[in-house]
């Protein structure tokens, strides 16, 4: 299997050969930042296109089909439209916080995006508390949303932001607990190690019952974290028009829009890494030939493919279910998911201690 660290080491060596240490690091950081941003934008565009097409097919429509073949250029056209649109200055807003909010949201999602292991050796940062770091940075986004709602000085936005705050802080718990279940199973928080450990079978198979429960909870809580339907109360269109981003226009709105899609990607990326083996191909212990064939598929395709499957499930949710009410949403979390999660964590500990897994 191709190891991307070959490429990265070669670039590193090349730079070091004619640049001093400090300059090398600066150049590398800039390069990585650029790559991340380009990747971020491209994935977001692909997701917007995919979502529009998929939802169209769910709804007996065709979806975008005029701009480019199969409407492929539609998201680019949308992006340029968004970039060229005027950012409307609104009276009575807290200007500084209002302008800061979309950046908080986008920074949180880029940071989380940067932690994902895209392929073998293709990861920006890999340290021993990787998962912990990922949870920490992805929670910054909520600050942005609360700021957006508060600084807009709009009653609808404020209700949206408060809903969002209640929702995301609650569901953070479920996400954390279900990830913790898997950390207990893996015995490490380092992302590369977690992926390597799944060489003999993905965690969702090896961890059997507790892992599957954790996966389902993670999917539900992850959908809630990204404020997508059926948990899209913060921006419930029929109630709050657009919720916390009602007052935003132009690229400021675009940031919220991009961040929503990228957060969906991050959620599915984490789900694939923890439960579905990340970039690790599908291996069955003992079937050497089969495993070898699987290794021929590049690791980045494995990773993106798994993400695509999880994202499809999340989109499927959105385009099928009606929206929950705020009290039902919180009841689901505090009365069902959290107790179930705690029990599941205990179950996982038992499974690990008595070695009941595969």
């Amino acid at each position, binding site marked *: 299997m191709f190891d991307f660290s070959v490429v990265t080491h070669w670039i590193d060596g090349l730079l070091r050969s004619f640049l001093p240490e400090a300059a090398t690091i600066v150049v590398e950081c800039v390069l990585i930042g650029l790559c991340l941003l380009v990747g971020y934008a491209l994935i977001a565009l692909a997701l917007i296109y995919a979502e529009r097409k998929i*939802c169209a097919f*769910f*709804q*007996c*429509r065709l979806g975008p089909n005029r701009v480019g073949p199969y409407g492929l250029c539609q998201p680019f056209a949308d992006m340029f439209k968004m970039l060229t649109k005027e950012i409307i200055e609104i009276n009575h807003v807290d200007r500084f916080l209002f302008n800061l909010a979309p950046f908080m949201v986008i920074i949180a999602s880029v940071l989380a995006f940067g932690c994902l292991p895209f392929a073998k050796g293709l990861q920006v940062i890999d340290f021993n508390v990787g998962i912990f770091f990922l949870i920490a940075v992805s929670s910054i986004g909520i600050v942005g949303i609360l700021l957006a709602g508060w600084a807009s000085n709009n*009653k*609808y936005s404020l*209700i949206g932001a*408060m*809903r969002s705050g209640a929702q995301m802080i609650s569901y953070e718990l479920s996400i954390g607990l279900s990830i913790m279940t898997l950390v207990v199973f893996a015995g490490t928080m380092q992302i590369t190690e977690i992926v390597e450990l799944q060489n003999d079978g993905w965690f969702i198979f090896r961890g059997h019952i507790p892992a599957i429960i954790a996966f389902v909870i993670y999917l539900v809580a992850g959908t809630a974290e990204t404020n997508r*339907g*059926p948990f*899209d*109360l913060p921006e*419930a*269109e*029929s*109630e*709050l*028009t657009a919720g916390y981003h009602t007052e935003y226009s132009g690229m400021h709105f675009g940031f919220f829009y991009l961040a929503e899609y990228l957060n969906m990607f991050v959620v599915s990326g984490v789900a694939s890494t923890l439960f579905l083996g990340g970039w690790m191909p599908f291996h069955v212990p003992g079937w050497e030939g089969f495993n070898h064939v699987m290794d021929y598929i590049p690791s980045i395709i494995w990773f993106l493919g798994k993400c695509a499957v999880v994202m499809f499930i999340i989109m499927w949710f959105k*385009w*099928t*279910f*009606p*929206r*929950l*009410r*705020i*009290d*039902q949403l919180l009841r689901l979390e505090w009365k069902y998911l959290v107790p179930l999660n705690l029990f599941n964590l205990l179950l996982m500990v038992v499974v690990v201690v008595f070695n009941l897994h595969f």
Partner: protein
Amino acid sequence: MELIEAIRNIAPGATIEEGAIPMVTVAAPQYREVAWKLRNNPELSFDYLICMTGMDWGDSLGVVNLLQSTAHEHKIYLKTFTTNREEPELHTVSDLWETANLNEREVYDFLGIHFINHPDMRRLFLRSDWVGHPLRKDYNADPALNPIRLENDELPDTTPSYEESPDGEIHETRHVIFDGDEYVVNLGPQHPATHGVLHFRVSLDGEIVKKVDVNCGYIHRGIEKMCESLTYPQTLAYTDRLDYLGAHQNRHALCMCIEEALGIEVPERVKYIRTIMDELQRLSSHLLFWSCLCMDMGALTAFLYGFRDREKVLDILETTTGGRLIQNYNVIGGVMDDIHPDSVKKIKELIKYLPPMLKEYNTLYTGNIIAQQRLKHIGILKREDAITYGVTGPTGRASGWSCDVRKHTPYGVYDKVDFKEILYTEGDSFARYLQRLDEIMESLHILEQLVDNIPAGDYAVKTKPIIKLPEGHYFKSVEASRGEFGVYIESRGDKYPYRMKFRSPCLPLVSVVDLLARGGKIADLIAIGGTLDYVVPDVDR
């Protein structure tokens, strides 16, 4: 005759004019007392105020109330008047029939009659700075008096009320609608969930709705005023534009009312065609209800499924009438043109096509646990409340009130077809939802019986070129998609109506929003609005 005797007993001073619906005229001082007795006498128990019409008879101003008893099924008009044109005052009956609350505000708006002890004497439709009261015959329509105003009409947080003290003095007090420190959110006039330009001011405590104040009139077009200067055939065009999802039914009511006044007997074929068209219209309306409710609840896919199927209904309407939303099909004495030769075939296809789709709706939405939790036990409308607020149609029937005009006073060929009046007793949003889905099935059942049996004959009878209604007053109502739609015409023998009043089914629907939504969440308010299914042009007229 027993009825008239009973009324004579409780109201000795009243003059009673006999007719199909007796007209009981009482003087203003006895009005409230008689109304109270009519409402509370067990033999009479007039508990349903169908329609309140404000009138200007030239020398006097007053109201004509059409009352019905749900227990005994008899109807009377209760009329009262005041000759004081400068400061007309009548006692309110809004505490006897809740529906009078908004209706008296409408009468005040259009005729300037102050209702004593009415809790909220604001204008209902027009701006607060409007000069004059348009339905008065001496109204000055000079545009200089009421120019197009460009400044915002501030909505006050208090409302005037004319209260009578025990010694008979009348003084103006002000009631507070919203306190200064309440968190008041404007839902509308532009809001995705109000389905039109309707404005709710909602006082919130966090997510909890404390009070809803309805502001109507954003799409008020003065249709009743316009009708007074139009000939009868010309007035027909306006009924389609009231509740555009019940265009056929509304026009059917007006045509029947005029035909009854003229003594025209329409051919059987016309009755069949009108009934079929009414039911098709009901189908399209109920399918739209389903779609829009689902969209309000966040299920966008369901929205498009509903529209996909409504399209088939609209296609059938379009082949015959040429219109999809507003069809202008009924005319006095019949219909505009014969049905298209393909219609029968297409209707049969539709009857086969829709039931499997309804099954799909049930799998997609009705059975969904989230949908059920959002709708069950939300916005419970009790039967008594439905009657006193005059909430008819599917909403009233979902509360257990048998109010289907098609059953109680059949028109068209409804007496010849076999159909059930669907009733639910829960009165919650889910019952209102199921009610309409069941009515779709029932409409298909009606269509099935009619479509093969349309008799041959003329599609219209010849009418005189100039239609003049004999002097008198006429009322006719039909079961429109959203409830009882009635037309009250008072004629003085001219080719123009002296007064034409439309009993809109949606105004009562809007008036119960406050009752149902109080104490619920914002999301419940949306669900309640969705299941009440009001159409704003019908509210505002």
